């Protein structure tokens, strides 16, 4: 049976779906029996969820204008 220590090192593989069926079943069996590891998995998922809210970054208007101007000045590719 997997130990809790081992499980904490397998969590990413588990979440990524990158493990053998046998290993996956071992992880699921452990999670079924161990509330601490369920809490650990929950924390990991919460962390990943919290990361997916990046601050908005606005491109400086002068740089955007310059790039758009350069784009607009490019000749279209030759038609084949």
């Amino acid at each position, binding site marked *: 049976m997997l130990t809790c220590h081992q499980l904490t090192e397998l969590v990413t593989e588990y979440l990524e779906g990158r493990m053998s069926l046998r290993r996956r079943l071992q992880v699921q069996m452990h999670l079924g029996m161990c509330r601490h590891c369920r809490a650990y998995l929950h924390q990991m998922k919460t962390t990943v969820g919290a990361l997916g809210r990046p601050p908005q970054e606005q491109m*400086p208007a002068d740089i955007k204008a310059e790039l758009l101007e350069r784009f607009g000045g490019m000749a279209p590719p030759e038609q084949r």
Partner: protein
Amino acid sequence: MSDRAKTLEGAPAPGAGNAAVPDVPASASDLAFIERLRARDPKAFSDLLDRYHGPLLRLALVFVPSRAVAEEVVQETWFGVLDGLDRFQGRSTLKTWIFRILSNRAKTRGVRENRTIPFSAFADQDGDHDAAVEAARFKPNGMWGVPPRRWEDDAPEKLLMAQQAMQHLEVAIAALPPNQRAVVTLRDIDGLESDEVCNALEISETNQRVLLHRARSKLRAALEEYVERK
């Protein structure tokens, strides 16, 4: 030595094109979008700038020492996109292609600024420092001695809303080794798929997963520390 072993051992040279994961070709909608760019549709290019400016800037900041330099690298990347646009053949997705241009330019710039990033997941392995959870929290039989507490059921929302928690997380992200930060930034902050990250950074799938695991583990620990201290 196998290609995979080579990739695991050392950082690939910038622009070497030696990604260990095959490129995913551009989708039909990607190709349609590229056609709009080739027809010089300003709205298409403006949308592209808006969509990728933030993610590119975040990745550039991993490689170079300052925001000013990162902004220059992003601008150079867009020049590179414009230069290559009409030759882009759709062998990778547009997103992967743009990120790869950024990553190569940022790596080159990082070298000039004396910042090189070892992309091997094993280059920074130093025992317990990279363990997901410190060994002292487990009993000798490998079971929890100091177990994690279950965050309240509404903790995710509360955590996300709490500005302090997010600031704590940002500090923890900034403290990650750059290779881990690059991977977690692309995967979890900007939502790229695993194969897109491998191709943008030219690293193997295994490498990517190990780096992601270390990064996420450290960030979980940082949030745990914040929740416990509250």
